[in-house]
């Protein structure tokens, strides 16, 4: 009596699995659409609204000084609104990669990127900072009185336009206060980075900041906030909206405030810095470097390009981070970067990397395919076994295993190859999300940005089609019709899920499928030929016997 009940149970389990898979995929997509994207829009709107308010406030009260208490540190980190108005810009620096504007408070008010790939959706050049955030090189004095005064007195620049396109150029910013004189000597280099030498007279202690992170692309797909590299080789990452108290750090070599692709950072690998990371009203980090009365630093504000950063200092490579998967994503990026230096196109680099990974795994997959084909010839025996033990899955699998052992073949690919796929997949995913190099990187035809989804859904559909094909030509050992149905349904689910994935990732999966199919086809043909040869030999022997 238990029999019909059992088969029903089995079916409902499988239906449940199917349902759960579909549900979880739908959940991720719905989450992306209904939660992440509207939230992003809301943030954008709020930013816009805020900046309007700030501009209005500014016209009333031009420089709002922060309330600084007399404690050791500027407690109130509410940034002074930076003015969108050009009138407050005292000097403009042109380098080969960017245009830097410095305002009346001696801060970097804006950095405009020059590279042709750094344009927003409307084709405008990308500006790193939004209005009401803390700006790079803002100074806070330890003495509250001096600090208040410093926000009222304008800084004087030695020159109003500086051209650092062909060689380095220096500008001196001076702020004359009643008790002290603050001097910032900034040397800009053609590659866009700068050296910084700040000093205050009369032993007046101050703090300097690398600023709040660029606000070009900060979403929930990748980390954004503050990243500090310490001289013991460790990293401290403080994500936005994730602070519960201020943090003090010593032995800091580089302090970077970053969004997905861009950073503003101050570094010094010769003498380390002490830094207070304060919490702003959104519980996001604002970094202040303890300067005493003078400090020498290097600075950079721009894209987190591997080559640019490592040209400044090899150790700055750690400023680029890929989340949890850094340990595998970083080597993956280095491989991609290495291949790209020969190939020159990121799309082809991904194709080539896929082939390379396939080649490395070739011995594994080939052996698996061969033994799977070997077993295909045993399929009548397998079917008989399954028929015999159809009520007892465990027993069936035990007997099957015995059969495999007897025939010296095991049809399964094994768990390891599948598990190995997962980190590779995630590594490529993270690299595509985080690597600025892949932003706006074209491949062929309609693919003009591998970092975002395919606008015409061609790659995902090709991916689904090849996946289906791959399943068709792979001899499978599944005999349960329900299980087979679920299996056949997988390409559809995958296609659906990949629709919104970065095109580069879909490209990787597509090429991967293509080569699996090729390999499988090849193995299948060898076996077919071998079978025919055997058959012919058999026939020959028969006729031979007859003749005798």
């Amino acid at each position, binding site marked *: 009596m238990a029999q019909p009940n059992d088969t029903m149970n089995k079916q409902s389990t499988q239906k449940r699995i199917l349902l759960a898979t579909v549900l979880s995929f739908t959940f991720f997509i719905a989450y992306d659409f209904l939660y992440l994207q509207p939230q992003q829009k809301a943030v954008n709107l709020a930013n816009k609204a805020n900046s309007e308010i700030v501009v209005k406030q500014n016209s009333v009260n031009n420089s709002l000084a922060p309330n600084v208490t007399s404690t050791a540190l500027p407690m109130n980190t509410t940034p002074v609104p930076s003015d969108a108005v050009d009138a407050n810009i005292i000097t403009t620096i042109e380098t080969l990669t960017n245009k830097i504007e410095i305002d009346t408070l001696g801060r970097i008010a804006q950095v405009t990127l020059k590279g042709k790939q750094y344009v927003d959706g409307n084709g405008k050049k990308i500006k790193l900072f939004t209005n009401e955030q803390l700006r790079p090189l803002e100074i806070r004095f330890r003495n509250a009185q001096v600090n208040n005064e410093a926000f009222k007195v304008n800084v004087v620049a030695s020159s109003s336009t500086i051209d650092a396109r062909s060689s380095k150029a220096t500008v001196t910013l001076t702020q004359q206060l009643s008790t002290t004189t603050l001097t910032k000597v900034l040397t800009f280099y053609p590659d866009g980075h700068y050296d910084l030498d700040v000093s205050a007279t009369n032993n007046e202690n101050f703090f300097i900041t690398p600023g709040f992170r660029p606000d070009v692309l900060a979403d929930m797909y990748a980390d954004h906030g503050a990243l500090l590299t310490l001289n013991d080789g460790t990293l401290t990452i403080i994500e936005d909206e994730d602070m519960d108290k201020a943090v003090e750090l010593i032995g800091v070599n580089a302090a970077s405030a970053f969004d997905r692709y861009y950073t503003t950072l101050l570094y010094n690998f010769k003498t380390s810095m002490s830094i207070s990371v304060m919490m702003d009203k959104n519980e996001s980090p604002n970094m202040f470097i303890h300067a005493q009365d003078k400090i020498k630093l290097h600075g950079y504000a721009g894209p987190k390009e591997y080559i640019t950063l490592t040209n400044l200092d090899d150790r700055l490579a750690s400023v680029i981070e890929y989340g949890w998967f850094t340990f595998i994503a970083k080597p993956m990026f280095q491989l991609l970067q290495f291949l790209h230096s020969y190939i020159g196109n990121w799309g082809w680099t991904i194709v080539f990397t896929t082939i390379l990974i396939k080649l490395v795994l070739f011995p594994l997959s080939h052996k698996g395919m061969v033994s799977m084909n070997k077993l295909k010839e045993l399929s009548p025996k397998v079917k008989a076994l399954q028929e015999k033990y159809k009520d007892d899955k465990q027993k069936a699998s035990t007997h099957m295993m015995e059969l495999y052992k007897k025939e010296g073949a095991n049809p399964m690919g*094994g768990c390891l190859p599948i598990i190995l796929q997962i980190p590779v997949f995630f590594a490529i995913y993270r690299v595509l999300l985080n690597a600025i190099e892949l932003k706006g990187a074209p491949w062929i035809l309609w693919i003009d940005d591998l970092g975002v989804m395919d606008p015409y859904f061609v790659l995902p559909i090709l991916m689904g089609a090849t996946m289906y094909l791959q399943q068709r030509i792979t001899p499978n050992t599944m005999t349960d019709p329900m299980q087979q149905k679920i299996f056949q349904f997988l390409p559809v689910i995958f296609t659906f899920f990949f629709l919104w994935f970065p095109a580069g990732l879909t490209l990787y999966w597509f090429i991967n499928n293509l080569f699996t199919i090729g390999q499988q086809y090849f193995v299948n043909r060898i076996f077919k030929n071998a079978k025919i040869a055997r058959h012919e030999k058999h026939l020959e022997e028969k006729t031979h016997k007859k003749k005798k």
Partner: protein
Amino acid sequence: MISKIILLCINFYQKYLTILSYGSCRFHPTCSSYAKVQFENNNIFKAFYFSTIRILKCNPLFDGGFDYVKVKCPRKDKQQFKKLKFTKIKIKYWKVPVENNYCLVLQHNKKWDQ
């Protein structure tokens, strides 16, 4: 505690994710059920070690086949025997002694009850 979390993960995997890797294990029992038995019968470090080795071996370069969890057999404790209450129990595992005081751990099959 950590074992429990790992077991939960394995259960989740077995229930919902096996579809992605269905029918790929070269062993009997499969890697996931092997790991489950390990974490339920062995201490966490050993369980972790043996499960990892098992997964690493689950590729076409190794033969696969039968590979049951092996643990030290429970000691025959007379004191404990006295305390035994003879009530109906639910059988989950059979520990089958093999050699050197080691037992294979076999999962109980509900079919055997009937």
